[in-house]
């Protein structure tokens, strides 16, 4: 096999790859996904060199590595833009306006799904649900959250990215990093930015804020803290529940003495195996 990389780049990658592989002492092949993120952090996509490097590092064939790389949507087979702009067009976001946002961006940028602007700044994608449905419609830029978007706000974001001005996600670091920088983090190399940005957005806190306003709480822990926790909380010390404390729904909460369908008896399977 031809040496995929040379010189300082090879040294740097080899050292990083060794760090990644060391996380998986039982089975080096587990390092393959992070290694593919790592080569994307160098080349901006999973290049033929990158595939050869992963194969060499893990003792796999290039076909085996390619088979994995082509399975996952975050691995790019062509040079990616500096920013992946993904508009969620799964059902809920699409209905809430994601389709309109994607159309607006596609027309504004002059590119379609999985295409990159000629200046190499932006790769536009339709993405699937990104677990932020309570902030729909959602857009991701290099996998940072841009919540509650409109065609206007999304256009302003991509204009800012193309102009090279710092652009901040609504929940995430204080500015969006590049595709290569992102890929390095995903390979497991922290960039020191975990403390930036908020802990939660408005929707995340909606229930907690209402509960505080109404004075609603979960029942207090029986006893005060760990000192009170029984050595065997499974023991039938039901009095641990304070007298007069109710289940917060109407259904009886105490299990029948014979157990339920889910807890057929008091048997401990771990002791029977």
């Amino acid at each position, binding site marked *: 096999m031809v040496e995929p990389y040379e010189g300082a780049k090879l040294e740097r990658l080899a050292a990083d790859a060794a760090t990644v592989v060391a996380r*998986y*002492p039982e089975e080096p*092949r587990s390092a393959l996904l*992070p290694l593919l993120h790592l080569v994307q952090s160098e080349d901006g996509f999973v290049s033929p060199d990158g595939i050869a490097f992963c194969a060499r590092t893990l003792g796999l064939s290039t076909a085996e590595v390619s088979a*994995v790389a082509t399975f*996952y*949507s*975050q691995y790019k087979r062509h040079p990616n833009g500096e920013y992946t702009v993904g508009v969620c*067009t*799964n*059902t809920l976001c699409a209905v809430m306006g994601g389709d*309109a946002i994607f159309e607006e961006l596609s*027309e504004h940028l002059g590119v379609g799904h999985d295409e990159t602007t000629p200046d190499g700044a932006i790769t536009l994608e339709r993405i*699937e*649900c990104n*677990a*932020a*449905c*309570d902030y729909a*419609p959602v857009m991701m830029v*290099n*996998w940072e959250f841009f919540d*509650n978007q409109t*065609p206007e706000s999304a256009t302003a974001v991509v204009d800012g990215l193309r102009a090279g001005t710092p652009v901040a*996600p609504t929940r*995430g670091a204080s500015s969006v990093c590049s595709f290569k920088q992102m890929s390095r983090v*995903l390979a*497991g190399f*922290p960039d020191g930015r*975990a403390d930036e*940005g908020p*802990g*939660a957005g408005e*929707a995340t*806190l909606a*229930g*907690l804020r*209402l*509960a505080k306003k109404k004075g*609603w709480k979960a029942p207090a*822990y*029986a006893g005060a*803290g*760990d000192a009170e*926790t029984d*050595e*065997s909380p*499974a023991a039938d010390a039901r009095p641990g529940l304070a007298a007069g404390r109710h*289940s917060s*729904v109407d259904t009886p*909460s105490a*299990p*029948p003495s014979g157990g*339920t*369908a*889910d*807890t057929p008896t008091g048997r*401990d399977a*771990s002791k029977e*195996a």
Partner: protein
Amino acid sequence: MTTLTPVLSAGWDAVRSWSIEAYRHGGGYQALRTALRMDAADLVTAVKDSGLRGRGGAGFPTGMKWGFLPAPDGGPRYLVVNADESEPGTCKDIPLMMASPHLLVEGAIITSYAIGCHHAFIYVRGEVLHVYRRLLQAVQEAYDAGYLGKDVLGSGYDLDLTVHAGAGAYICGEETALLDSLEGRRGQPRLKPPFPAVAGLYGRPTVINNVESIASVPSIVRGGADWFRSMGTERSTGYGLFSLSGHVTRPGQYEAPLGITLRELLDMAGGVRKGHTLKFWTPGGSSTPLFTAEHLDVPLDYESVGAAGSMLGTRALQIFDDTTCVVRAITRWAEFYAHESCGKCTPCREGTYWMKQILARIEHGEGTMADLDTLLDVCDNILGRAFCALGDGATSTITSGIALFRDEFEAHVTGGGCPFDPAAAAAFHYVPRSARADVTAMSGVGSTAHATGVRR
């Protein structure tokens, strides 16, 4: 009246809530100290007795899953946390890990101790950069504090915890596909049995649990099984995150006892979008059969939702009002399943491919009445015949959608297109650019009986 019960979410509004200091200030890592003084088997029993059921969708009793591990044979056993949250509508684990990653880390340490694991993994989807940053930092803080590594808190117990980023594949949320992915392969499901408890990661006994399940463990250790059972229903115990999204006034995370109803949750969330009425909703993500306003009072617990014909799933309550075209919604979900089918088994690979195309032509007014029967036939050939639950899930909204809204499907056929205006459903005002909007404008169903049929 049911009220909210913040446990997992209680600390999410703290200053720097993601830091180890904030987490400890709220009582974090007390449960770990308690757990390390307990016998591991007693911890398993405690979680069994709590009745905690898997929060990732299937609802399998968590403690029982732990109890399925064979007796120690001297070799390694693993905990793998499924943090690959990708089910459409599901948005609870990602905000939990963003706001309070230590809740998951503490739960993972206690669980590992309980099952005798010395190397645990958190498999988080790769498309959430800042969440991954926070998890990496939380794990490092836990090592620095002596909660991870050699001799955890002087107990003699050793544990390493590795946070592993995926790379974009919904199927990796299926537990055996996740294991293959974690082993550096294409994420395709494995044949079961053997179950992961017997032969999981690297062929060794493995417990795989959802983020919210594991994050619930510290509270069970602190409060005890009875405390946990004091919330929820008899067979669906405890609290859970209910995620409201879509056409609702205040979407978001509402942590409540299992058994709360959508009517109660909607009251808390300010109701359906002003001026509109509820048309359909998913109780647990896009793999669960649709509900309508008739189901507003179904208790959201495993048994009641199942008895009403759907599944509690991940409590992903996607709310769609009367402006939403159900055919458009279902077609888009079908496109998702076709995109995410891993291709391993024929019913799912071929079935989702055809369902997507049949639905697309119905949506765009090019379908026939016979297409509806063909769709149901395809669903029938997938359900129960696919390799994993992805195929089953792909059929849920189609079969339930046709059962509930057959006239609306038919209106697309007879009317030659979609009678709905997508702009009316959006969260903002805009002038549609798409061809779809033109089709909508010329929709021919206005003069027929279908018009009343589709505008529920």
